[in-house]
């Protein structure tokens, strides 16, 4: 993975010094609350219900074991012994004290980590495919480009005060695991007719109040133009994006109100004037690719016979293998999902002890690296098949082996009323209730690929609008109600879910979900996944069942 050079290290240390000064001025009353708010947000610091929340950047979801240990230490020393992985591969702390945040950031800087631009109206962390570099369906590893973009976005002097936040995602594989189409700029690595690899660039996607799917602005962009094209889009957005209404300030609204054709023409016009001044050289790309070379795989890893035996002997292991590990580019290896969706724990949460133990497992079994996923789980990407059984036992002992990846209990869930001052309704409690109702693993496995996303309010932190089943907390005269949508997706066939009907009360939400699953089981054709059934039969059968005698 990318290792900081002296310049990278200096930059994050100088950032800590800068923020320390800003915090001090705020505490001394020399910096106003509005000014400090903007500055602290660009260092990942929100103020929410109980305490500040700090979001730490994990560039494209890649972590070294020593960084995991630091996350554990920070959770222990500055928080309540746990932290929370987000849908953009970052990590959040819910309880740090404001005065101590500069110290916390200084500790992070010792392991090449920071919280720069993880919040606020600026260029955010660039996200990517958690299986980058190991999945068989990949055209090219997207991470070198992510790192190039990370550097370009970091402290970009022109784009630090945008109309609104700005998120970029890059994917290099056939299957989109990074929700690329729901980003302000989405980038797919593609091959053109001449066989050359370049980028397809999308713009104007985004979630939140008005979820919109991104549209292609450049079907094929040569690699050398990556940064100039991004800069052109950003300049057009910075100058023309709306600043009069924060709900209309995202680039998605600019693209929509301007029209795709005209927007694209403006970007092209800008780009043609700058593209030759900021070329990305082949040497630069090659040097960055050299930072992401594959680890030293054992050539004989696939000669192991123990795995087949364990799969035959141990049903529980076989289930975990099926759901929580996926095929690897290199024969004899698997990528292993570490489920952060244990039934009794808030989705995405992990404790310090678990983090430390996981760091050891990463060192022992996966070349010392861990990745975070868009669906709030972790991945050990390079596990030898001969190690899978032992690894499973160890993960299981840590409660990190719930065999539910990609199933209905692998929910995305925001903090909701428990932590967030903006929430209309609870989400963690509902997730727990749904888990309790679906405690039969065989049933869950039979249901298969169903993605439930649940947010406590319109801001949509948990991407409810693109969940196969979306649950949105709404406020009805001070009570917690839930709006259900069906048919959303953030994958290749990205779609915004349709409203099922009127919202349901808190005591009805879990039953509504189980009824939806019943309807699916009743109507599905052989091998038909939930989303396909919803597309085929429409919402009516679900409606009938959910609202029957409610």
């Amino acid at each position, binding site marked *: 993975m990318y290792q900081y050079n002296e*310049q990278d290290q*200096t*930059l994050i240390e*100088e*950032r800590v*010094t*800068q923020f320390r000064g*800003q915090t001090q001025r705020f505490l001394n009353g*020399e910096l106003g609350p509005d*000014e400090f708010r*903007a*500055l602290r947000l660009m260092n990942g610091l929100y103020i929410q219900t109980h305490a500040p929340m700090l979001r730490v950047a994990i560039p494209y979801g890649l972590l070294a074991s020593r960084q995991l240990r630091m996350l554990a230490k920070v959770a222990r020393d500055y928080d309540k012994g746990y932290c929370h992985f987000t849908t953009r591969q970052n990590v959040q702390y819910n309880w740090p004290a404001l005065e101590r945040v500069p110290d916390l950031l200084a500790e992070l800087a010792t392991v090449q980590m920071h919280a720069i631009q993880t919040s606020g*109206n600026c260029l955010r962390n660039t996200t990517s495919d958690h299986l980058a570099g190991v999945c068989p369906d990949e055209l090219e590893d997207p991470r070198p480009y992510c790192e190039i973009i990370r*550097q*370009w976005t*970091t*402290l*970009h*002097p*022109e*784009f*630090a*005060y*945008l*109309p609104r936040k700005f998120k970029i995602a890059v994917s290099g594989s056939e299957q989109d695991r990074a929700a690329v189409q729901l980003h302000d700029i989405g980038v797919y690595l593609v091959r053109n007719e001449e066989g050359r690899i370049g980028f397809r660039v999308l713009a104007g996607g985004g979630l939140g109040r008005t979820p919109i799917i991104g549209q292609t602005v450049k079907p094929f962009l040569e690699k050398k133009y990556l940064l100039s094209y991004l800069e052109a889009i950003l*300049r057009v957005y*910075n*100058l023309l994006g709306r*600043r009069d209404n924060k709900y209309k300030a995202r680039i998605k609204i600019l693209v929509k109100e301007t029209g795709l054709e005209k927007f694209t023409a403006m970007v092209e016009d800008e780009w043609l*004037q700058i593209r030759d*001044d*900021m070329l990305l050289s082949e040497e630069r790309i090659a040097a960055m690719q050299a930072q992401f070379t594959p680890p030293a795989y054992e050539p004989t890893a696939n000669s192991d016979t123990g795995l087949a035996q364990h799969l035959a002997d141990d049903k529980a292991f076989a289930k975990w293998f099926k759901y929580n590990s996926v095929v690897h580019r290199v024969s004899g290896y698997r990528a292993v999902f570490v489920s952060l969706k244990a039934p009794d724990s808030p989705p995405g949460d992990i404790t310090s002890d678990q983090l430390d133990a996981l760091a050891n497992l990463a060192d022992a079994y996966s070349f010392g690296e861990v990745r975070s996923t868009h669906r709030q789980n972790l991945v050990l990407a390079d596990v030898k098949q001969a190690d899978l059984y032992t690894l499973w036992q160890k993960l299981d002992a840590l409660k990190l082996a719930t065999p539910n990846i990609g199933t209905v209990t692998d929910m995305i869930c925001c903090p909701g009323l428990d932590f967030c001052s903006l929430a209309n309704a609870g989400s963690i409690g509902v997730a727990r209730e749904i888990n309790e109702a679906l405690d039969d693993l065989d049933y869950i496995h039979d249901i298969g690929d169903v993605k439930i996303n649940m947010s406590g309010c319109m801001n949509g932190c948990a991407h409810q609008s693109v969940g196969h089943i979306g649950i949105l907390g709404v406020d009805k005269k001070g009570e917690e109600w839930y709006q259900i949508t069906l048919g959303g997706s953030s994958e290749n066939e990205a779609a915004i879910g349709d409203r099922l009907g009127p919202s349901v009360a808190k005591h009805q939400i879990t039953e509504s979900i189980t009824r939806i699953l019943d309807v699916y089981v009743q109507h599905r054709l052989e091998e038909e996944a939930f989303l396909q059934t919803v597309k085929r039969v429409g919402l009516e059968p679900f409606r009938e069942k959910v609202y029957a005698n409610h």
Partner: protein
Amino acid sequence: MPIIKNQQILENTWTFVDDDAPLAGGDITVSVKRWTEDKPALLQHSGKVGVRLTPADNVAALGDDLPFIKLIELHFPTFSDGRTFSQARLLRSRYNYQGEIRAVGNYMTDQVFYLHRVGVDTFEFNDPKDMELALSAIKDFTVRYQASTY
């Protein structure tokens, strides 16, 4: 009010003249509107003449006039209006503007590092305390990622 120029605190010699006020003597700045409408008179002015841009002003509109404009003030109505940064960048890199670019209005000392990097070379602050802060903030970072000639 003093200004910062070349890492030094200097006296400001410029006056902004409101659209409906008569032209003052000495070095003055005017709005884009006044510049466009009163250009012949302004070119006869005895002192130097500059133009003050608001974030909504399109820098391309100044086009061929730039050689006659000795100072461009970029006015922040609020510190969060980041269009100013693109204006400065465009003035320097696209229109090759060689004169002085000054940040004025409601912005933060914490922004001078970025402003300096996009081509702003002088800074006016309402509060003298901010002067010392700004002098140090301009050097907040010794490293940078984006290629830049500034």
